[in-house]
């Protein structure tokens, strides 16, 4: 029986491999024109290789087939048979895209009719690339004479690197170090870091000679033009250095600078470190030598992998449980408070105090737990930035414009769910910047700008929020045109536009059905407007703002919460109803007496430190019965000029809440983001402040 679980394991891992591959190819792309770093080439090759093996193992023949072609090209590239070029990287990226499509189909998504022809075209292209330039020269490794026993363990690629080093006239060294079994990997990494500036570490060989049970010897095969003394000094106290080759290298093929003259051979003067010959004889395995550190530390291990992959829904489940625990804790706290106040005798009173203390300890631990789970959910934005960079690369090429795409802040971390949901809105904004923002090169030159435009994608963390900027140095937005279109499309009346300030005019582009260009170019993307971008963002509790100057460019600023999972909310009462208002959307809370209310054209307003804000009764917004109050509590929501005072009857405190969507049929009730549970298990509705602000901004949404 085919196991669905195995398939999903495969899909998850193959997906990771493809993401790594795409990332590395982007780095490779940036190194165009230079000799690519051997480590990078090898990593890219290994990724393709892993994908091939993995797919073959899981019976995914088609993916394995294409991955094989990809691997051949990358192998040719790392072996220096093919040169790194624009066309090559393009084809490789197309290969990754096609493989991603094929993987989706393997995962059960509907087949895309393009996939097959694209796969065939890429495979064909790969085959031609890999086949070309078979340039194998006489083996220089035979000439220099390396111990056949050592040569036997080199892979074809390592031999290639050896050859490259020999051709360069560089000396090959054997750097020997003995490390404890406990930490040899970190020590080796440190040694690698030391050696890297001096040359290339081609291979790391564990010495086949047995050390004692607690340590292990390594030979690093190292190619370096530096003098032996210099290398020895760098690794002093850690490793010994000896030449690898029998003969000195004849640098006949290439001219070799004088400084590269190999150092004279002599045995390393190392008393500190074990030489192969002087390694002491050791007792047989399993004998008494098993005493000591290793014996006691023997763990019962099943796998030494340091990471686990977790389905995000499991983390959601954990988050929910934590949310429920927070509720339980609030209950305990309340009971303790009741007991403390009503306890007439000393004993229950004392007991209540203890309970309260424990409850506070519980709260702290729950905080830790909550932060821990939140932390696990965080992923770097680079996951989506990489995909966008690839897309932009292709789009820029198609557009015929000259654009430098700048990416920064990929290391900023956000909740996985938010990162996933961000790719569409960001892609749309970037397409817009390319399509409508950056001008054609001749136009730019005519305006005295650099022919090459710039599109920026930048993220930074600001406290509990992340700000993402999508900017360009293009034409900027044309307010007159926006005004005209808005009136033509009936989005707003002519009279209304006259009162609008520049910023408000710009914000009209977020209204449904707005597009400043009549011709919908292929790049601007399937007729989706900025309104969809805004809706997507508000679903993530995010805000979007525009700044644009004619001739200088446009900048979209997205502000997002770090996480959606648990938020701090203000609990408010309206009549006998209770609502939760996410505190991240509340700027301040004031209280007013009914007598302090004023009206403008019969709309109620309040004065908040000299600024007049609309006063909106939540009861009226939701069509609830209003109860007379002595004073209103006013929750100020919204940003900048779009601020509103939302009036409620009572403030009931603050709580950490987990917002859950309303079940199926009630999904999408305007102004309600979902529900959460408070102490008594009753569902409390959570306001969707973004949606409410949008609604209040529209003149049609007159209250009452």
């Amino acid at each position: 029986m085919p196991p669905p679980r195995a398939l999903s394991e495969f899909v998850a891992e193959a997906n990771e491999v493809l993401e790594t591959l795409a990332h590395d190819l982007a780095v490779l792309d940036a190194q165009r024109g230079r000799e690519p770093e051997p480590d990078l080439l090898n990593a890219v090759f290994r990724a393709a290789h892993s994908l091939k093996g993995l797919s073959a193992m899981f019976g995914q023949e088609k993916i394995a087939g294409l991955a094989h072609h990809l691997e051949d090209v990358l192998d040719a590239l790392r072996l220096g048979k093919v040169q790194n070029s624009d066309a090559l990287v393009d084809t490789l990226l197309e290969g990754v895209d096609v493989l991603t499509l094929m993987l989706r189909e393997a995962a059960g998504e509907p087949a895309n009719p393009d996939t097959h022809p694209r796969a065939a075209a890429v495979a064909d292209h790969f085959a031609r690339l890999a086949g070309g330039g078979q340039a194998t020269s006489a083996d220089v490794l035979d000439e220099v004479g390396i111990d056949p026993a050592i040569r036997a363990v080199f892979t074809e690629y390592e031999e290639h690197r050896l050859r490259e080093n020999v051709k360069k006239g560089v000396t090959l060294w054997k750097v020997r170090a003995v490390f404890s079994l406990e930490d040899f990997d970190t020590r080796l990494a440190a040694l690698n870091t030391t050696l890297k500036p001096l040359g290339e570490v081609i291979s790391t060989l564990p010495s086949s000679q047995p050390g004692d049970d607690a340590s292990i010897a390594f030979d690093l095969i190292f190619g370096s033009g530096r003098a032996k003394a210099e290398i020895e000094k760098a690794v002093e106290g850690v490793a010994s250095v000896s030449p690898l080759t029998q003969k000195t290298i004849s640098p006949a093929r290439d001219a070799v600078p004088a400084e590269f003259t190999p150092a004279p051979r002599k045995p390393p003067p190392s008393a500190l470190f074990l030489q192969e010959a002087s390694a002491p004889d050791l007792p047989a395995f399993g004998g008494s030598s098993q005493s000591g550190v290793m014996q006691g530390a023997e763990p019962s291990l099943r796998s030494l992998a340091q990471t686990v992959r977790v389905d995000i829904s499991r983390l959601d489940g954990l988050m929910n449980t934590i949310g429920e625990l927070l509720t339980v804790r609030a209950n305990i706290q309340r009971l303790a408070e009741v007991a403390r106040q009503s306890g007439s005798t000393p004993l229950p009173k004392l007991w209540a105090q203890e309970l309260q203390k424990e409850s506070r300890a519980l709260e702290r631990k729950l905080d830790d737990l909550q932060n821990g789970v939140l932390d696990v959910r965080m992923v770097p934005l680079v996951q989506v930035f990489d995909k966008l960079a690839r897309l932009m690369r292709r789009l820029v090429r198609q557009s015929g414009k000259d654009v430098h795409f700048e990416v920064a802040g990929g290391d900023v971390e956000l909740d996985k769910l938010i990162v996933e949901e961000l790719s569409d809105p960001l892609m749309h904004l970037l397409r817009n910047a390319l399509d409508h923002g950056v001008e054609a090169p001749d136009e730019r030159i005519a305006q005295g700008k650099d022919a090459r435009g710039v599109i920026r994608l930048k993220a930074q963390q600001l406290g509990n929020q992340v700000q993402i900027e999508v900017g360009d140095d293009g034409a900027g937005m044309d307010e007159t045109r926006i005004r005209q279109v808005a009136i033509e499309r009936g989005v707003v009346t002519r009279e209304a536009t006259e009162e609008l300030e520049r910023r408000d005019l710009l914000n009209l582009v977020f209204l449904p059905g707005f597009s400043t260009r009549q011709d919908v170019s292929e790049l601007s993307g399937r007729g989706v407007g900025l309104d969809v971008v805004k809706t997507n963002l508000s679903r993530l509790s995010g805000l979007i703002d525009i700044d644009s100057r004619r001739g200088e460019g446009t900048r979209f600023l997205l502000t997002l919460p770090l996480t959606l999972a648990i938020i701090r909310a203000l609990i408010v009462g309206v009549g006998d109803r209770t609502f939760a208002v996410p505190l991240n959307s509340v700027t301040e809370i004031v209280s007013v007496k009914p007598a302090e209310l004023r009206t403008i054209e019969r709309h109620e307003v309040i004065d908040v430190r000299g600024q007049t804000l609309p006063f909106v009764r939540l009861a009226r917004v939701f069509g609830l019965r209003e109860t007379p109050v002595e004073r209103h509590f006013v929750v100020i929501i919204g940003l900048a000029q779009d601020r509103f005072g939302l009036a409620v009857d009572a403030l009931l405190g603050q709580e950490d809440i987990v917002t859950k969507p309303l079940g199926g049929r009630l999904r999408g009730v305007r102004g309600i983001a979902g529900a959460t549970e408070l102490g008594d298990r009753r569902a409390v509705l959570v306001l969707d402040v973004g949606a409410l602000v949008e609604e209040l901004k529209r003149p049609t949404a007159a209250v009452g």
Partner: protein
Amino acid sequence: MSGCKVLIVEDSRATRELLAAAIEVLEGVEVFTVVSGFEALKVLPRHRFSLIITDINMPDINGLELINFVKKNPHYRQTPLFVVTTEGREQDRDRGLQLGADEYLVKPFQSEILTALARRYLKL
């Protein structure tokens, strides 16, 4: 012979699970999995393995180096070692066998083959 330990060295998570499952059908066999050559070097002295199964293409030390390490070391040299790899290249295959690998399986192969080979070498 029961209670024997098998070490699987493989960096691909999904493949590692596949290999482990193919070995775990053998009764009384305890499977240990590690993700790299370095990890293998760390666990080798701690257990007496009856069989080692390794990939070739791995991030730190390659599988050939691991074979060499095992087969040249008097402590481990008797331990049967299988190479399981996508590396179909003649050169790598020949080297693997020259270095002393006992079996060389090129992916994809049927799990039954691995199970059967393991059973034979473990004398179950």
